C-alpha cells in the first residue's frame, strides 16, 4: 500500500493527470468534459481519474449516468507545504546566513587580532 504523500507524488508525475487537476481547480467536471482537451479515449482518461482518486486527490460522485469529479479539499496540502518550505526556506535561509556569516567573520577577526595581524582579508 502506497503512502499518502508517495501516492500523491506518483499521481502528480503524469502530465495528463496534472492537466486534469488544473481543470478541476476551476470546478467540477464530468469524465467527458475532462477527456475533451486530450487526444485520448474515455477509458484512458478514466484510468487517470482512478489513479487520482486512489491517491486521494479527487472525489468522484454518481449523478445519474454521469460521474462528475472534483478536487478533494486539502488534497495537496502536504505536497504544498513541502514545496513551500523548499522554495521559501532556501532563499530566506540564505539571506539570514549572510547576516550570520558577517557576524562570525567579525568575531574571528576580533579573536585573532593581536595573534595574527596578517590575517585581515
Amino acid at each position, binding site marked *: 500500500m502506497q503512502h499518502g*504523500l508517495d501516492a500523491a507524488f506518483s499521481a*502528480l*508525475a503524469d502530465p495528463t493527470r496534472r492537466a486534469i487537476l488544473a481543470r478541476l481547480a476551476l470546478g467540477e467536471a464530468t469524465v467527458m468534459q475532462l477527456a475533451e482537451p486530450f487526444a485520448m479515449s474515455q477509458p484512458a482518461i478514466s484510468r487517470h481519474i482512478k489513479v487520482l482518486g486512489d491517491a486521494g486527490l479527487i472525489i468522484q460522485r454518481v449523478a445519474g449516468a454521469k460521474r462528475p469529479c472534483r478536487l478533494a479539499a486539502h488534497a495537496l496540502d502536504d505536497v504544498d507545504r513541502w514545496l513551500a518550505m523548499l*522554495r521559501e526556506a532556501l532563499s*530566506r535561509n*540564505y*539571506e*539570514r546566513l549572510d547576516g550570520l556569516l558577517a557576524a562570525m*567573520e567579525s568575531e574571528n577577526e576580533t579573536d585573532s587580532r593581536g595573534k595574527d595581524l596578517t590575517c585581515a582579508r
Partner: protein
Amino acid sequence: MRKMTVALEGDTHVVVTRRFAAAPKSVYRAHTEAELMQKWMTGPEGWTMPFCISEARPGGQLRCEWTDGKGGDFYLTGHYVELEPFSRIVHVERMHLPDPTPDNHVETRFTADGAGTLLTMRMTLPDAETRAAMLATGMEEGMEASYARLEEVLG
C-alpha cells in the same frame, strides 16, 4: 552577485548555487553546527527551529524541528554520509509533515571564491517522477519569485 541559481541535471538532480561573502570554513560550520544552524535554517518568516541535533560524522544523526508557535510543527530527519571539513558534506534528509517526503540525497560543496565561498548543493531525488512532480507543482515559479525578492533585498 549573491544570486541563487537553480538548475536541473540528468533525470533526478536539482542543483542550487549561491555565493557568500565569507570563507568556506565559516559557511561549512554554519551548515554542520546545531547552534549555528538554529540561527538561520528557520524557513519561512515567523518560524523558528527550537530543536536541532547535528552529529557531523559519517552515520551521525540529523534532526531539526520547526514551529510557528501557533501549533504548526514539522520536522526533518536524516543522517550524514560523508564529511570533508570544510569543503564537502553528503547527507540524506526527509521532511515529516507528518507523512515523510521522499528521501532527498544532498551533496553540498564549499569552494573558495575570491574572499568568499561558492556553495553548490546537489539534491538527488529517488526518481524522475518525484522530481517532475516537485517542479511541476510550482517550485520553479516559486524560485523565480524568490530570486526577485533576493534581488530587491540585495539591490
